[in-house]
């Protein structure tokens, strides 16, 4: 049972977890830094070798431990450093997003974006827009383990 009748507080700073693949998106994040393009400080980047390293369990665990939004960034399909990793990511995350929506979690709490190493601008824009979207959705109450108070 939902432990409290907490409604999603909209006046807060969202906590966002970004899984970034080492070869494209993480380099893209560096690119954003080099070009002095800012993105919110409450985006926590976790570097993975490839976007397909991300297990649906990681996404749910991030939500469970207090993340309000989770975004996966990887190489563009066709450009994966390991040739085909992001093709698997595409299928896996499509199904996971469908399941989260089916369980009643707000659409848009989880996103997948393809950001290449040269797209520092895109990285910064994506993070800014995602953070704004998560802020408008309110705090994640549905998937959070309420013992993990922020």
């Amino acid at each position, binding site marked *: 049972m939902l432990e409290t009748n907490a409604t999603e507080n909209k006046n807060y700073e969202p906590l966002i977890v970004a899984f970034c693949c080492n070869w494209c998106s993480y380099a893209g994040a560096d690119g954003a830094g080099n070009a002095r393009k800012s993105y919110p400080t409450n985006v926590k980047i976790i570097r993975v070798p490839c976007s397909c390293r991300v297990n649906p369990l990681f996404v749910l665990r991030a939500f469970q431990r207090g993340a309000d939004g989770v975004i996966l960034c990887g190489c563009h399909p066709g450009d994966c450093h390991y040739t085909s990793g992001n093709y698997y990511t595409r299928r896996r995350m499509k199904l996971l997003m469908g*399941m989260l929506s089916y369980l009643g979690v707000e659409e848009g709490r989880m996103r997948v974006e393809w950001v290449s190493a040269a797209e520092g601008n895109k990285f910064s824009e994506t993070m800014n827009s995602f953070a704004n979207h998560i802020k408008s959705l309110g705090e994640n109450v549905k998937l959070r383990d309420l013992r993990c108070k922020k």
Partner: protein
Amino acid sequence: MQKIAELMKKEAISLLTEKKVANVLGWKTGEFFYDNEAVNFSTPEEAEALVYNEFCPSNLSKYLIAKTMIEKAPTAVFVKPCDTYGLNQLIKDHRVNRDLITVIGVPCSGMIDINKIKTIHKMKGITGVEVDGDDVTVKSVYGDRKFKKADLLLKKCMACKGSDYAIADKELGERMECKHAPFDKFAAVRRLEGLTAQERFAFWQKELSKCIRCNACRNICPACSCEQCIFDNQYSAVAGKANANSAEEQMFHIIRAFHVAGRCTDCGECARVCPQHIKLELLNRKFISDINKFYGEYQAGADAETKAPLVDYTFDDVEPTISAKGVK
């Protein structure tokens, strides 16, 4: 079904007498008429106890993991058409040794749900059940009642995949059809998809809060055959034995459904064995329906060769973007 039972008994006894196999997996009578138990026969004398009737819903394939991989003993198994999909899945997952298995297909015209008799028809004190074609008589100390078999079928039998065997070394008897009212197995999924996000969340909160983490669904599932489940692994950070709150209630079920996505044959065993009658089939069928929609119609276990959808890809797969409808 009685004729089939006799053919099965003859087959089992002959296989064991001629020592073609060391074990035969089948069913024998339980305490009451409706609780037949899976059993392993290792001698022709034991095989005399074999039965087969409308109360044999379990899939015996999963016992082959221990028999062929640990005991390494040649084993024969009786499988109904729906069980063969689970068996193919076990073979595809390399969890059983196909060379040690003799697959004997047995026909099925539908299994009866004793819980329907007890809860919908509120019968207690049941002392016996007699099936004559489509007519079923349930005897009880409080009075006997008659039913039509089609009204008493297990929920999983309403979505019967038909009388073809996905795998069989031998078939016994004539194939049978399961007669049931028309049933759209994705209708409930679509109905849920049509609700608002809040309504869906409220529905799943109520359903999943019933869960007592008994793991019956996981342990009976032919696709769940990990030697150590992450939920039992103390180093996996999601290990847990009880649900402290809704987040843990959801975690187990989402992850389990995801781990079997693309490999779930829709056999319905998980929902059947749940002691709290949680509608688990709605989770697994959501994945099946999404896979069918995005990656082409796919039936897990139809054969032992094709790649499961989640270990496959095309260059034109649909992008994982949020839907155009946005937040509801």
